[in-house]
Each structure stands twice: as structure tokens, then as C-alpha cells.
């Protein structure tokens, strides 16, 4: 259970939001909506602990995330604007590195399946792939991250074609059905059955 209490965020001398209080339980999906510059990315970065809010706090299962540190990290999958994919490495190597950093250890077969499911060639350096395929390589992490109960996704649907967007939707749906929590941002309705929408 993720709780945000009275969050306030100031960036560059401008107050983006204040008094933001919400919670996301297991099996719930929260969509963060709002125009560009409304603070969607900042909110997600605060929720995963990359950014310190100017006021308020974030709690995970009752404990402050700053106190949990690496313990919290093991429970979270964060996918930011930048895909966190290294150009020099192949899709398979990227996935292995990402899993190692997150403390996950999928089997070789699971990793292959994850890449195949998203249609990412595992043996080519990512440099040779298109922007959309790179995004898919980043999303491959979703299908091996079932152990992380909380998914925080920043604009997961950008640069995806219809098939990949559908696949992402079903990945998010599966995760919620498993009892995971999802918080994702997008400026248009992605067609998911959201439990709640947070308008910034």
C-alpha cells in the first residue's frame, strides 16, 4: 500500500502542486493525468524517492520510504522518461543489467520470453534499433518484474505502436490482477480500467 500525504512540490520557484493526498492499494491502478509541465514526472519521481518533496511524505506499507531505502527499492519498478537502455549493449544484455540492478534474477528462459513477447531482437546492439524498439526493450523489464509489487511508470505509452501499446496495457492489467499496484502517467486516456484518476 502506497500512501502520499500532503505532498507539495516546487520546481524552479514555481509550485506545481500542494496538499496532494492519495493512496494506492494492491490491485489498484492510478492514472496521473494532466497537461505538459503540470508535474506528472515530478510526482512519480517523488513517489519512487528520487526527488524529495518540499513538504509531505510518502509511505510504503506504513513506513516512510526514506527510512526503508534499499528495502523499498526491491519493491518498486520505476520506468522513467529516459529508457535506461545502453546503446552499446544488446537487448538481452540490457535486460540482464537492469534485472541485476533491481535485484531480480529471472532465468535465462524468462528473459528470452520477455524479449520475445515485446518483439525485441535480443542479440543486436540497441543502437541499431528504432526509437520505438528501444522503448520496447525498456518495457521488457515489466514482464520480468512481477516480484516488484509497485510499478511507477512515467509515460509508458509514448513512442509505441498500437500493438506494443496493447501489450503494455495487458502487462499492466496482469500486474493489477496479481495484486500489484500501478501508478502511471499519461496525458491521454490509455484505455485501461483505472481504479482512479489523479488530475494535476
Amino acid at each position, binding site marked *: 500500500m502506497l500512501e502520499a500525504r500532503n505532498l507539495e512540490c516546487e520546481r524552479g520557484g514555481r509550485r506545481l502542486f500542494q496538499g496532494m493526498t492519495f493512496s494506492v492499494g494492491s490491485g489498484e491502478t492510478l492514472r496521473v493525468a494532466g497537461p505538459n509541465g503540470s508535474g506528472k514526472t515530478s510526482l512519480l519521481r517523488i513517489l*519512487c*524517492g*528520487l*526527488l*524529495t518533496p518540499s513538504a509531505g511524505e510518502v509511505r510504503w506499507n506504513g513506513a516512510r520510504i526514506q527510512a526503508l531505502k*534499499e528495502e523499498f*527499492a*526491491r519493491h*518498486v519498478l*520505476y520506468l*522513467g*522518461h*529516459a*529508457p*535506461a*537502455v*545502453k*546503446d*552499446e*549493449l544488446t537487448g538481452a*544484455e540490457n535486460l540482464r*543489467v*537492469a534485472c*541485476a*540492478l*533491481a*535485484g531480480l534474477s529471472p532465468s535465462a528462459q524468462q528473459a528470452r520470453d520477455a524479449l520475445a513477447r515485446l518483439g525485441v531482437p535480443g542479440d543486436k*546492439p540497441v543502437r541499431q534499433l528504432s526509437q520505438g524498439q528501444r522503448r520496447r526493450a525498456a518495457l521488457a523489464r515489466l514482464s520480468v518484474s512481477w516480484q516488484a509489487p509497485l510499478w511507477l511508470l512515467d509515460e509508458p505509452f509514448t513512442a509505441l505502436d498500437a500493438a506494443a501499446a496493447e501489450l503494455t496495457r495487458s502487462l499492466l492489467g496482469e500486474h493489477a490482477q496479481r495484486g500489484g499496484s500501478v501508478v502511471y502517467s499519461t496525458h491521454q486516456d490509455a484505455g485501461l480500467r483505472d481504479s482512479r484518476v489523479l488530475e494535476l
Partner: protein
Amino acid sequence: MVVWRELLVAMRRRSDVATALLFFVVVSSLFPLGVGAEPNKLRAIAPGVIWVAALLSSMLSLARLFAADHADGTLEQMVLGAAPLGVIAAAKAFAHWLVSGLPLVAIAPLLALQYDLERELYGVLALSLLLGTPVLSLVGGIGAALTLGVRGGGVLLALLVLPLYVPVLVMGAGSVEMASAGLGGQGQLLILGAMLIAAAAFAPWATAAALRISSE
């Protein structure tokens, strides 16, 4: 795992590694050409010149230590990773040293040849570099993390880090000079070793703190 990844990336970008090494070779070869081929003079300046070239060459690759990871978002994943950030910072510094420090140690005796350095001093020179270059990678990591995402970060990095390199330079070059004077360079080498231990113990955590600040 992080070390393996860094080495893999370095392998696929061999030109970057080669640039730093060639820079080291070229800079230390320029001095005999500029100063003239007077053997006594060359012998006297050899340790200092080789050490300064090593400092600059290590600086050269420092700017890229975290910049690429910062740009493509991997750094965020490291900050949020399951492993303590200090451990990752240490692994990155170690990989940086393997790629940019260790080759210098290997090639330094070859350059010493140009300066007509006595054969007995090659060992001291290589040993001082072996102990000193990891300190450069570790301390440089703090600077690289602090200047991340700053405009004109490269110059700032040099201004920030080079003064911190001074003790390493003094001890490193000093050890070879002392050995050539027949006094033995053990004292300086021991101090270099102590610096290495202190840097290995503290620098990764300072780097981690700096990375947290710059990834906000």
C-alpha cells in the same frame, strides 16, 4: 555485474579507451622533444612528467564516468537499485581504473625508456602508478558525480579534481625521485598505499551522496 557491464560497454567503445591511452603516450613523448635530448635533464624530469601525463589522461575519461548513464536514465535505476549506491560507485570507479589506469601502469616503463630512466626505477615507477591511479579514479568519481548535468562541467571538473590530485602527484613522482637518489621510495609508496585505502573506504560513499544530489 556493474563491472562486467562497464567493461562490456568499454569494449564496444574501444576508441574512447584508446584515446586516453594515446593521450598519455603523446603528452609524455612531447617533453623530450620540447626540452631537448640532454639525458641528465630528461632523467630529472621523467617521474614528474609521466605522473602529470597520467593525471591528465585519467581526467580525460573521468567526464564520461557518469555522464552517459545520466543521459540515458541508467543512473536513476542505479540510485533506485537494490544494491547500496556506494557499492555501485565503487564498482564504477574500479571499472574506470581497469580501463584507464591499468593500461598506464603497463605502458609507463616503455615511456620511461624515452627518458633514459635507470632500469631499477621502472619497478618503482610502475608500483607508484599501480597504487596511485586507483586513487585518481576514486577521488575523480566524486568530482564527476558533483559536476553531473552542470553546464561546462568538463572544465569545472578539472578545477575541482586536479587540486585533489596534488598529494598523489607529489607522492607518486616523489617516490621515483627518492629511489633514484638512492634513498629508496618506500616511504612515499607506503603513503600512496594509505591514500588508496582511505580513498577506497570513503570516496564511494561521497560519490554516492553526490549522485543522489545530482539525480534530483
